[in-house]
């Protein structure tokens, strides 16, 4: 049984496409709707980030519902940074009640990166424990405290994986932990270093994890070598090979080169066994997503 189209696609062995929508920094539902209308049909589901980079934005739940209203399937991201286990369970119940079933459990960027570095973080639970809690609610029909839920929520549980963080040897073990905690799909950090990602996937298959979880590989279209350098130097847990920076720097039309590069990446990812889809993060360049999926031949 599947609770969302994303799950249906993935379970049916179809190559899934997800894309990211960053909610606005103010109360502008029209912004979400505009993006939603533009991106409709370009992916199976859309991630609504949860105060990304620890900046206050419209909540991922509200933005998810706006997407639903526009006929898009949302993936609601939920960080451990801002909620304790009480709020998490409450938000999950609320999300599923409103028809938001894809939930991505993540630790979240540390608040020092955002616009409220003075904030106290929560981290009552970590993403693995978050998955354990949500799975119990769904599969055992009880909240983490042990009280029965007459109508349990039906989430499709996702997690993040970063093959480019350290220690490398442990990244697959961490994925295995997430899978055993309940992750049904994982979205990875953006792949720019395909070689390292292939090595990662090798270990994933070695442990048979590709049979247990849908790996959706992250991709990012880069607009310039400056964007590449920013990712390399400023974004935690990113790996940007020098040849990519050079290639964008030398290109006469960096934007086109970035698109080409992204298409090539998608192409190589498609051929890696165990990769069941791609997740496109086009921050502030969402309008490129329809073209990307069209030219990559992965339009749903």
């Amino acid at each position, binding site marked *: 049984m599947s609770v969302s189209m994303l799950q249906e696609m993935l379970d049916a062995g179809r190559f899934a496409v997800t894309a990211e929508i960053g909610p606005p920094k103010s109360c502008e539902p029209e912004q979400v709707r505009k993006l939603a209308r533009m991106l409709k049909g370009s992916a199976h589901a859309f991630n609504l980030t949860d105060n990304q980079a620890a900046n206050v934005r419209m909540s991922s739940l509200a933005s998810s519902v706006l997407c639903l209203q526009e006929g898009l399937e949302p993936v609601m991201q939920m960080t451990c*940074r801002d909620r304790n286990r009480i709020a998490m369970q409450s938000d999950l119940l609320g999300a599923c009640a409103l028809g938001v079933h894809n939930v991505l459990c993540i630790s979240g960027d*540390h608040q020092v990166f955002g616009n409220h570095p003075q904030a106290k973080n929560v981290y009552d639970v*970590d993403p693995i*424990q978050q998955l354990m809690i949500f799975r119990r609610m769904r599969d055992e029909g009880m909240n983490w405290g042990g009280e029965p839920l007459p109508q349990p929520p039906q989430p499709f549980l996702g997690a993040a*994986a*970063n093959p480019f*963080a350290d220690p490398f040897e*442990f990244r697959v073990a961490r994925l295995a932990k997430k899978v055993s905690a309940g992750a049904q799909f994982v979205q990875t950090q953006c792949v720019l270093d395909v070689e390292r990602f292939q090595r990662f996937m090798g270990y994933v298959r070695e442990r048979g994890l590709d049979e247990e979880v849908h790996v959706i590989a992250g991709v990012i279209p880069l607009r310039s070598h400056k964007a590449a350098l920013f990712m390399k130097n400023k974004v*935690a847990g990113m790996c940007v090979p020098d040849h990519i920076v050079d290639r964008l720097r030398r290109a006469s039309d960096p934007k086109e080169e970035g698109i080409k590069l992204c298409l090539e990446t998608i192409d190589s990812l498609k051929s890696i066994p165990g990769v069941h889809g791609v997740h496109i993060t086009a921050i502030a360049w969402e309008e490129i997503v329809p073209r990307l999926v069209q030219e990559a031949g992965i339009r749903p």
Partner: protein
Amino acid sequence: MIIAERKPLTEVLEMLDGSGEITVLGCRSCTAICLAGGEKEAKEMSEALSLHSELKGKGWSVRPITVERACEKEFILPLQGVKGTVLSLACGVGAQVVQEMFPMLQVLPGVNTSNMGAPEGIGVFVEKCAGCGDCILHLTAGICPIARCAKSLLNGPCGGSQNGKCEVSPDTACAWDQIVRSLTTQGRLDLLERNIPPKDWRPSRSGGPRRTVNVEAMPGDSQKAWRDTE
């Protein structure tokens, strides 16, 4: 030990505005070791305050008193008879015990009490323990992720761990990187595969202010009374 650092002098001066008799309290325990509030620092603060008072006509009369351990009543008896303001260079615990013992005094903090840690190098102190009340060091190669991971993660490094450093700052070691390395050295990597379930935070601050009772240490009568209520 408890790590503290001196408050900026200007903040202290502002706090003391309007005082008359000022006693600078030093402590020879933790804050002396982290060079924030020992005998020398108390003397220095006392001289500084006197000088400021003389320069600016504040009319303060200042003297230092340094005790062995400001957090135990028995050791703060030298403060008997003191009047007015006490500027505490002892930790927040010491300051409160002094205030409790001498309710008429106005006890002000001269240091910012920060954490439970250890010296790492000369003048460098690193947090080690968050006092969560439910120790799991046996699962994490003797390195506490509650205190030393910026996100207090219990199941391995997040995606921000790079080259052994935490995403929060290049000066901060990634605790989970250290744990993975340490477990590798010890041949106990199997521990990493085990998911640690959500933690019970009741023994931590989340259960409210804590009161720890060592029944064996109680006097006979109260021990009996305690056991009867258990």
